[in-house]
């Protein structure tokens, strides 16, 4: 009882902060990081060495970069009541197309930046086409988004294998390694890609009317259509954007490991991306979305993965441990669950002993 009254009388600033939609995802992330810091004092340490920043925090952000990118695209697709489960396959396509292009263009021993630019252009072109295909199936053909993108999710790996001829393509070309492994101003280059996409997206949504249109379509597509919003064109372009994000992620991933694996690159990435979107507080039914939330969601997922490795959980059970942690994070964020917990607590303490 005393706890409840203390909470009620607590500073209204705290309440206001807690009522912000991003506060719970942030709290979950902070708790995870702090937990790690407690058990492993070196975990949160950052170190400046040889003109670069080192530390687990930098690693988490860097490793999360592909997932963050894919989650940003996924957020907007989900915001207009869609879903894109082909992102993992699109990532693999972009990765193999990039590796294939580099192999072809550097074959004659020729160097310079031309292969890099060609590889980026080819990979991103392929990814945009994939997004366009998904968008057309959903908007023009009228398929259910999950089925429409399931097609490319399955077929995409096949396409990637066609490109790679069934091999894991290894990339022997130094400039390409910069994308996913290089450093700029002491920070991983991938982080600049993520920040660039995020900022551009926020500007595009906030400074133009796109944000309003996306939310209107997500809440009520029919009413938006009647009001004159070009809902189908916008929905189509969001699928293309999701392909774009998956393509960028493919570049980062293949660059980071200097190879492209048509079968395993981006495996189950679509599920992690949906989870990141859900963790970030975007309504899966459409309408309400948060880009920043999805970024935090992706960081939570990567932190979980890193935590499990850092804690030395045996690999056989690490998926189970991850699932349990995800469940805990989701419950923590659910207002219904928190209300029940609170009711339970007040009943326990309020009841005469």
């Amino acid at each position, binding site marked *: 009882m005393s706890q409840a009254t203390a909470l009620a009388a607590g500073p209204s600033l705290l309440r206001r902060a807690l009522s912000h939609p991003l506060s719970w995802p942030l709290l979950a992330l902070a708790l995870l990081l702090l937990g790690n810091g407690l058990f492993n004092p070196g975990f949160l340490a950052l170190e400046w060495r040889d003109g670069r920043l080192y530390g687990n925090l930098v690693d988490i952000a860097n490793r999360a970069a592909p997932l963050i990118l894919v989650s940003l695209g996924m957020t907007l697709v989900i915001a207009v009541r869609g879903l894109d489960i082909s992102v993992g396959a699109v990532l693999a396509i972009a990765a193999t197309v990039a590796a294939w292009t580099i192999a072809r263009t550097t074959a004659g021993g020729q160097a310079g930046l031309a292969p890099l630019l060609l590889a980026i252009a080819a990979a991103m072109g392929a990814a945009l086409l994939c997004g366009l295909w998904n968008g057309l199936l959903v908007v023009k053909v009228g398929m259910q988004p999950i089925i429409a993108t399931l097609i490319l999710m399955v077929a995409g790996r096949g396409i990637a294998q066609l490109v790679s001829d069934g091999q894991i393509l290894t990339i022997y070309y130094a400039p390409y390694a910069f994308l996913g492994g290089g450093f700029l101003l002491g920070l991983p280059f991938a982080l600049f890609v993520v920040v660039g996409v995020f900022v551009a997206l926020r500007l595009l949504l906030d400074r133009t009317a796109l944000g309003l249109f996306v939310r*209107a379509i997500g809440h009520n597509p029919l009413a*938006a259509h*009647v009001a*004159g919003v070009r809902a189908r064109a916008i929905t189509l372009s969001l699928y293309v954007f999701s392909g774009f994000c998956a393509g960028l992620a493919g570049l980062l991933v293949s660059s980071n490991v200097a190879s492209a694996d048509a079968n395993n690159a981006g495996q189950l990435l679509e599920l992690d991306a949906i989870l990141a979107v859900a963790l970030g507080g975007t309504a899966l039914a459409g309408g309400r979305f948060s880009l920043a939330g999805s970024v935090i969601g992706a960081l939570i997922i990567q932190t979980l993965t890193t935590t499990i490795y850092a804690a030395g959980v045996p690999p056989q059970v690490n998926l189970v441990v991850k699932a349990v942690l995800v469940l805990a994070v989701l419950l923590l964020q659910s207002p219904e669950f928190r209300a029940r917990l609170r009711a339970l607590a007040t009943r326990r303490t309020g009841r005469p002993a």
Partner: protein
Amino acid sequence: MVLHAEGLHKRFGATRALDGAGLCLRAGEIHALMGQNGAGKSTLIKLLTGVETPDAGSVALDGRPIAPATPLDAQRAGISTVYQEVNLCPNLSVAENLYAGRYPRRFGMIDWRRVRDGARALLAELHLDLDVDRPLSSCPVAIQQMVAIARALGVSARVLILDEPTSSLDEGEVAELFAVMRRLRERGMAILFVTHFLDQVYAVSDRITVLRNGGLVGEYLPADLPQAALVRAMVGREVALAGARDPGAGVAADAPVVVEACGLGRRGSLHPVDLRIRAGEVLALGGLLGSGRTELARLLFGLDRASAGELRIDGRRAELHHPADAVARGLGLCPEERKTEGIVAGLSVRENIVLALQARLGWRRALPRARQAQMAEHYVAVLGIRTADIETPVGALSGGNQQKVVLARWLATQPKLLILDEPTRGIDIAAKQEIMAEVVRLAREGMAVLFISAEIDELTRLGDRIAVLRERRLAGELPGGSDGQQVLELIAGQAG
């Protein structure tokens, strides 16, 4: 006396929804429950049917106090309800809907033969003859409504509550519904009938209870309460049944034609129609449900593609492929289905109001936030939209205010032609009058209006001309101020 409720109080947060309301229902009577939106009708019904429990007050059925905690409790006690939005399962068959949740069983399996026979018997009681294996969604709304009533009767009800059962029915279907209600009355059932249509109250009810601001205003016999007095009791002040244009103040013959349809039609939904609407003119469009009213509005607005004829806007041929094309040419449409096609419930009042104008400007030219707020405040004031502030989600507003928001959305685009498809359906009388008065005012300022309505007195009162559709073709046209009887005959097709 079958049902007696008194002193009912109910609060939702800071809102006092019911403040000492009461109700007496006698066996074998049709009792109308009247009141504006927010008067407490819905809350009262929720208390009677166990959806909510009262904070104070008592309900007695056959002299025994009851306190239904769930709708099932209320049903077992003998109180059945048919809600405004038919809440059956459209994908199930008629028979399944009638028995869902209480299937007769045989050897642990559902006894389908008894389901079908029972369904037929129930429908026969209402003099309905239909294939009980048909999916409910294939039946017209009116039939679905009857099925809902039949389902309510299936549980041996003493009291039947009909919450706005007529709002989606046309005249003929309303008459059928009334016949069913009278038959049930003869069997000694007490029927509580909630509606916004005043003429229906006088057509069918034996007694009227009026609520206002959560309290009981009084119980009357229809004979003692003329329509004007009823409106005064509901609103609490005089309401001019306004909106009427001066007779003879027709539109100048040289006013420019804004929209002209030449043989405009669509295969399977509307035979070719010729229609002209001049600036400053209100063209009232009537017809039964399914006569092609909404189909015409959809064609004019580019929601459907025309398969024949052409459309001219400002004298220029216009091909409309998308509502956005219509909006770009200065058209606006308040659709018939407010919830599904009109409001975006999750967005704020401000965002809903600017949506169409912003769509017309395109995504690149965003309206500055201050300008949006200014526009929203303006229309909230002009149309008297009752909302806490302009950032409140529209879903939290009452129906009449939601409709005003949709109207404001189109007024903000300053349209040349505004198409209003049943703009007053399901909203309370004060909001209805305010909306109609605003429409007339705008027409005087030069806006062309196509006013679609199922209510004949609205057609005759508002229209400079009255066009009537029948069986998906234009049946004829009458001058404004025509006699209601003439319009009715044209709608029903009795005149020559």
